[in-house]
């Protein structure tokens, strides 16, 4: 059994300390935003990063899928599948945190706001990706077809994220990068949000590398059994 590298251990502890600091700062350093009910605005420090990671995972999955189609290297298929699995998890987390915020601010957990609609589509696309993987027995064909589907799905994302909210009127607060290209946020809130985005991206990278290794081991075991 290989021992973990010292750098990896330092990075993992660094990530633990950073995320602890982000959680502390989200509740005790950043002020509550004006115009929101009670402390509800603090959920932004967790909701936005989970939504960001869900989208980032989609991008990673799409890039790995393109690389698979070019190289036919099974490692790229493992990367695409691992990124999609994490993307699905983070999309569920973004939906749940958004739903809690919606209940506090608008009185209902779900009202088909364009942003809620977009994240639902993203969840459905991820779920469909895994339904496709489950329906093809041959590993090479499964990798190719799911890579093609991941790319097809990725091209619809800009329409979901940018076009659908423009066509429908939204209750959702202005996104961080709004149509005026200006950041409307208290500086301390902005610092915590950036810190949280950085921390969640680090968390995704760690989970992603773990998931890739686990999937690699699982496939090697399957290969040995067969």
């Amino acid at each position, binding site marked *: 059994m290989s021992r973990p590298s010292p750098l990896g251990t330092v990075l993992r502890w660094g990530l633990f300390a950073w995320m602890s600091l982000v959680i502390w700062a989200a509740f005790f350093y950043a002020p509550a935003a004006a115009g929101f009910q009670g402390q509800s605005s603090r959920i932004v420090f967790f909701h936005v990063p989970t939504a960001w990671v869900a989208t980032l995972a989609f991008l990673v999955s799409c890039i790995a899928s393109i690389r698979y*189609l070019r190289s036919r290297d099974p490692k790229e298929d493992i990367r695409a599948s691992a990124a999609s699995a994490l993307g699905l998890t983070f999309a569920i987390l973004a939906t749940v945190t958004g739903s809690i915020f919606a209940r506090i601010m608008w009185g209902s957990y779900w009202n088909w706001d364009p942003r809620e*609609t977009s994240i639902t*589509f993203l969840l*459905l*696309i991820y*779920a*469909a990706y895994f*339904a*496709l993987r489950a*329906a*093809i*027995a041959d590993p*090479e*064909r499964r990798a*190719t*077809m799911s890579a*093609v*589907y991941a*790319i*097809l*799905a990725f*091209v*619809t994302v800009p*329409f*979901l994220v940018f*076009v*659908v909210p423009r*066509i*429908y009127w939204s209750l959702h607060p202005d996104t961080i990068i709004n149509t005026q290209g200006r950041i409307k946020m208290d500086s301390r809130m902005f610092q915590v949000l950036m810190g949280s985005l950085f921390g969640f991206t680090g968390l995704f990278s760690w989970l992603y590398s773990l998931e890739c290794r686990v999937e690699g081991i699982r496939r090697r075991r399957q290969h040995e059994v067969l």
Partner: protein
Amino acid sequence: MWRFLAESGAVFAKDLRTEFRTRVALNALGLFAVTTLAAVSYTIGPYRIAENDRPFLLAALLWIVIFFAAMAGLDRTFVKEEDTHTAPLLRLSADPLVVWAGKLLFNFVLLGVLIAILVPLYMVLMGFRVDSTAGFLLVLGAGGYTLAVTTTMVAAIIARAMSRGALFSVLSLPLLLPLLIFLIQGTRAAVEGSAEGVSEALRAVVSLGGVMTVVSVVLFPVVWNE
């Protein structure tokens, strides 16, 4: 170029001839659409919707009927090649892009026939009136093409998988939901006679159709030759 068009036309003519022998796709699409329309007309009818809600709700119901009917038969074009074991012969005798163009044309024409029968029936049974006929026809045409190009690609993917029927809907609908939203908004604008609304929705539909066409041209040979 002429050769490409002639060969695509030959694939289209072959599909049309085999379809008229069995009429599986045509019957599935037509009967599904008529049954759904009868159910919608019986349960909701032309007068149970408040006047203010009519443009949006009737546009939404129309596209839901068309989308679900499309899910019932547009996969046949590739599934039948696998079922009858004619796909290898087609692979040997035609370039992948020729096959893609022929199948796309076949699905587009099939949808065109469905829309030509369904829409007048829908207008009669649901009391659906359109203010901007030209805008409505443009939305129908662009929507039909984008629906056909997306489902053609998904049909090519699922033809090589297990439990194809269910998988076709599962994979297609998440990719088509943004299109459904744009088409409902465009049709609503056409009903209300808003040229600006029709143009905004058309831009989104044509962009999505264009992106899907480019991605399909690049990826179809990969799927077809797998």
